[in-house]
């Protein structure tokens, strides 16, 4: 399959699904969540799977993006595009700012410092009442719509989101396969090795954090305008944990796998919101099962199985001839 064709397919699936589901508000909202979590999962793959920097800061950046977009829209009266750009810029800068001081930290301590970051963001959002509305949150953002066309407004939102999602997907795919991306990948294996090859470890680490943060921020901007209400309870550590579980399910090193993982876990989780008492229990059980049974991820595991089968078949044929 050619590359343009494959990309076209990835764009066509959410657009077609949205068109098919028009009129069904619940199904469309599930689709929107699949795309939003897909964005968060791609950000995680970029930072963790590709650059090897463990992070639990997704929920923090998601929150910063959501609040940045909402405040821009509510206080400055800017349109959604303004809010989105503001979210991307602010979270990108925050990501860069977080990346710089934590250069010295590695492994699970990196995970924990990013965890502390998420927790600090949550505390700030809860207590900085004059800016964020505190526990009451912010509401009254308006959903963006596409001019000149008349679709179901939810579908119009889904189209915009799918376009952003697709842009991120293509951009990440290109980044990973570029010279720049390969340099970033080197950080995963050895700082010294990267350094010896003339790769600036500090620069690439910070930029990995900044890029991944900006993607989370963009997701946050879409989330805020979709739900039209944001409060601190939407951005807890559970979001980061869930997103990493999605990536582990799909395969931490594979963009497509992460997107599929996000879709799978979202489809499990969204119906569970109907039973709020059971939701955390079942969700946690699913996450545990995924991690314990398939720590390498579904897509890489399948790929390895196929590779092994092909190798054994080739070995059989070689022995026959």
């Amino acid at each position, binding site marked *: 399959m050619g590359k343009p064709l494959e990309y076209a397919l990835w764009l066509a699936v959410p657009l077609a699904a949205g068109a098919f589901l028009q009129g069904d508000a619940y199904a469309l909202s599930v689709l929107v969540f699949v795309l939003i979590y897909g964005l968060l999962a791609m950000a995680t793959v970029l930072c*963790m799977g590709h650059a090897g920097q*463990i992070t639990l800061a997704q929920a923090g950046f998601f929150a910063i993006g959501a609040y940045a977009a909402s405040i821009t829209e509510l206080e400055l009266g800017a349109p959604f595009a303004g809010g989105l750009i503001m979210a991307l810029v602010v979270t990108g800068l925050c990501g860069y700012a977080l990346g710089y*001081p*934590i250069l*010295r*930290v590695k*492994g*699970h*301590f990196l*995970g*924990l*410092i990013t965890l*502390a*970051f998420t*927790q*600090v963001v949550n*505390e*700030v959002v809860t*207590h900085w009442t004059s800016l964020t509305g505190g526990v009451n949150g912010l509401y009254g953002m308006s959903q963006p719509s596409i001019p000149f066309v008349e679709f179901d407004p939810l579908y119009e939102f889904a189209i915009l989101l799918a376009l952003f999602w697709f842009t991120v997907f293509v951009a990440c795919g290109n980044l990973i396969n570029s010279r720049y991306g390969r340099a970033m990948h080197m950080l995963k294996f050895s700082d010294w090795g990267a350094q010896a090859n003339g790769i600036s470890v500090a620069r690439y680490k910070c930029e990995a954090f900044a890029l991944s943060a900006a993607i989370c921020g963009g997701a946050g901007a879409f989330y805020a305008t979709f739900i039209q209400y944001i409060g601190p309870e939407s951005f807890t*550590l*559970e979001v980061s*944990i869930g997103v*990493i*579980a999605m990536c*582990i399910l799909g395969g931490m090193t594979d963009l497509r796998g992460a997107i599929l993982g996000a879709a799978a876990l979202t489809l499990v989780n969204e119906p569970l919101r109907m039973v709020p*008492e*059971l*939701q*955390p*229990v079942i*969700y*946690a*059980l699913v*996450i*545990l099962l995924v*991690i*314990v049974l398939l*720590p390498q991820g579904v897509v890489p595991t399948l790929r390895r199985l196929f590779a092994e089968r092909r190798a054994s078949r080739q070995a059989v044929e070689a022995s026959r001839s």
Partner: protein
Amino acid sequence: MFDFVLAVLPQVIVTGLMLGSIYALLSLCFCVVHAGTGVINFAQGDFVVIGLVFIWLTYVDLQLPLLIAIPLTVLLTGLVVTIMERLTIARVIDQEPIIPLLVTLALGILIRGVIHLVWGTQPRMVPHFSGDTPILIAGGAALPQTFWIAGGAVLIMIALYFFFTKTLFGLSIRASATDREGAQVIGVNAGLISLFAFGLSALISGGAGALVAPITNVDAYLGLEFSLKGFAGAVLGGIDKPVAALAGGLFIGLLETFVSGLISSEYRNMVVFGVLMIVLIVRPNGLLGGKG
């Protein structure tokens, strides 16, 4: 301002030391598990909550005397945790470190979810072990439970000291902490150490849970905060050194009470996590830890 500070200082110190001794026990648990397995266990606070649940069941619901209720709580917590360890953590222990960390985080969600499901959201009260008339010491008022907590913490620490210096299991955990592969080479069973480290941390957590229950009441959502504070203490002191971790836990307790007493309780978590982030960045091995 200065007069005000002086006036509340004794109270802040008394409360801070009480809270600090709980956090110190938790920091010690982080230390034990990290030493034995290299895992940072973020379900630690939820183990304490399991202890809270069992003390309520035994002391309040079944009306057992304290002398039976507390040991029973400790043992039951240990049992539940070791079962969970065998089913989940033991299976991923040799994956890269983020995987066990995530498993413990998910276990935390699971424990909170199950307790919430079985018990509902209403926190349960546990009566104070010996009344709730405050005792005045050095210008501060302390609940009698404070002495239970501080005394219990000291007892647990003494027991741990003997465990770590006199018993084979304690010594092998310490050997694993120094050099995990080296310890395995000389015949330390890694799987058993993992079970044992988690079991021990659960026993400590169960004890801590039993002691703090009257102060905190039984609330499923205390777990994550306990974990974060205990971990902050362990990292602040140095996660490789039990005594340093203890000191770190005490410091976090004092810091938190100082911030809530002198500034505002709204800022206590922000300050604690801010300090944690700064320490992790500036001295990843802890303020009292060695150079790594």
